[in-house]
């Protein structure tokens, strides 16, 4: 495995009952970069993302074969270790799902799972992660309020802070701005650009402009296959494949 590679996916196939959702995926996700998985709806982007932290386990109809190496460990082979492995990957989903507790505990829950129980340390970390997700100024006076009272954009940033609190190495984001207004979306994108210094980010999106704004590395998918992958300039300005050209010019929309 290359030293700059964070995730190495080899011969990944995913089957659902009678159809194949992902076909022979071979890709590598670079370290400390924003990798964007781009493609039209229903092309298997989300499934690919869910394979990476094995949330595919929750869907009995999915059968996954192949290898996914993270730090030289094949996570598809990991048994009970999966809970620890998942902590290495923060997840941001399409809609925010705050935990059913107050704002403070949404962050503290994950901290406690990583073994931090001292009140003073919890307080300090909760504040720092809320700051990291650019949410602190908006919630500092109302940490004991239920997280569901926040606006949806704030909830998404809370979910980002919560994900960062378990000290991951990777952030998996599944169209994290699709339910948000333009200003909240911009805030999330800006956070991602800042966070890539310390984290490897995998972002699933179907928005071409979003990919162009923040991507370093682009993986273009269509109908369960990776059509093309490469640095952002290459994919956008000099795509090799006909399908990629068509998508970039808006032919699928």
């Amino acid at each position, binding site marked *: 495995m290359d030293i700059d590679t964070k995730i190495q996916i080899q011969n990944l196939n995913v089957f659902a009952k009678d159809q194949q959702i992902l076909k022979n995926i071979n890709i590598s996700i670079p370290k400390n970069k924003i990798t964007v998985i781009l493609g039209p709806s229903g092309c298997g982007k989300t499934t690919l993302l869910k394979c990476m932290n094995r949330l595919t386990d*929750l869907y009995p109809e999915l059968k996954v074969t192949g290898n996914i190496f993270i730090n030289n460990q094949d996570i598809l082979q990991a048994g009970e270790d999966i809970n620890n492995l998942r902590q290495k*990957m923060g997840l941001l989903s399409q809609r925010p799902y705050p*935990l059913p507790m107050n704002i403070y505990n949404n962050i503290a829950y994950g901290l406690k799972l990583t073994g931090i129980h001292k009140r003073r340390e919890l307080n300090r970390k909760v504040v720092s992660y809320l700051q990291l997700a650019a949410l602190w100024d908006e919630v500092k006076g109302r940490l004991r309020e239920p997280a569901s009272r926040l606006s949806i954009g704030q909830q998404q940033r809370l979910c980002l802070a919560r994900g960062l609190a378990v000290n991951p190495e990777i952030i*998996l984001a599944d169209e994290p701005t699709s339910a948000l207004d333009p200003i909240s979306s911009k805030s999330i994108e800006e956070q991602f650009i800042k966070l890539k210094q310390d984290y490897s980010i995998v972002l699933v999106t179907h928005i071409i402009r979003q990919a162009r704004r923040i991507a370093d590395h682009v993986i273009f998918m269509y109908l369960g296959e990776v059509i093309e992958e490469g640095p952002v300039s290459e994919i956008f300005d000099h795509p090799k494949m006909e399908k990629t050209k068509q998508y970039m010019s808006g032919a699928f929309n």
Partner: protein
Amino acid sequence: MKKAGKTEEKIFKVLMIVSTYFIFAVLALIIYSIFEKGIRAMSWEMITQPPSGGYYYGKGGGILNAILGSLTLAIGSTVLAFLLGLPVALFINVFLIRWKKLVSFIRFLLDLIWGIPSIVYGAFGFTVMVFLGIQTSLLAGIITVTLFILPIMIRSMDEILRTVPIGLMEASYSLGSNKSETAFRIFTRQTVSGIVTALLLSFGRAIGDAASVLFTAGYTDNLPNSLMEPVATLPLSIFFQLSSPVPAVQDRAYASALVLTLIILVVSIFSRGVGRRYHKTKINF
């Protein structure tokens, strides 16, 4: 075509209004007759005294034995059924998520058991008691009623746990929680108001049932004082008083029914308050 649709809508609207009013009228009538007859016999003595010697012939005393007995029995079995039922409901919804066919089979079984009449539970409890050589007692009553309300408890908690979005489950796992943490710390919190409703439903069934306690808890004029002694219950107390030839004692049956209704009312209002308090923490879109 359009006209036919309009007539159809009118017919159904009238039908809905009529049946709604009809049901409310029947309910109102029941409550009115309980109040009307019950209030005549209602007295301080009625709810603070156990029956005296000639109570069932119209002499002094009250139904404190049945009030306390019913409360202990219903609370005991609701708590027991909750402790046994919550893990089952969580197990179905969190641990068995990959075994959809098994889960639907379990749900089918529970629905079947739900339909078994309570007298069958009473008879079953009695058979077991005879086999073990145990007499009618509060403990035997609690165990039988627990068995009787378990399917209701499990299925109503199960139905509310099913509404937890899979996204929340994914969020919990991606933070590194294991299955038990996801079940007991995330799922239960997310559904507190629904779980309270399940408790209330089960409590209502437990306190209102006569047949399951007839052979198992027995009946006594004494106040409940031991798990191993028989205990009186309100439904049986109503039954015995109604069977009396003395009109004054029959009125007391209605007063007892009034007490039972009020207990259920108070518990409902209380649990609604609890439910609403926690409802605020639910995700809303």
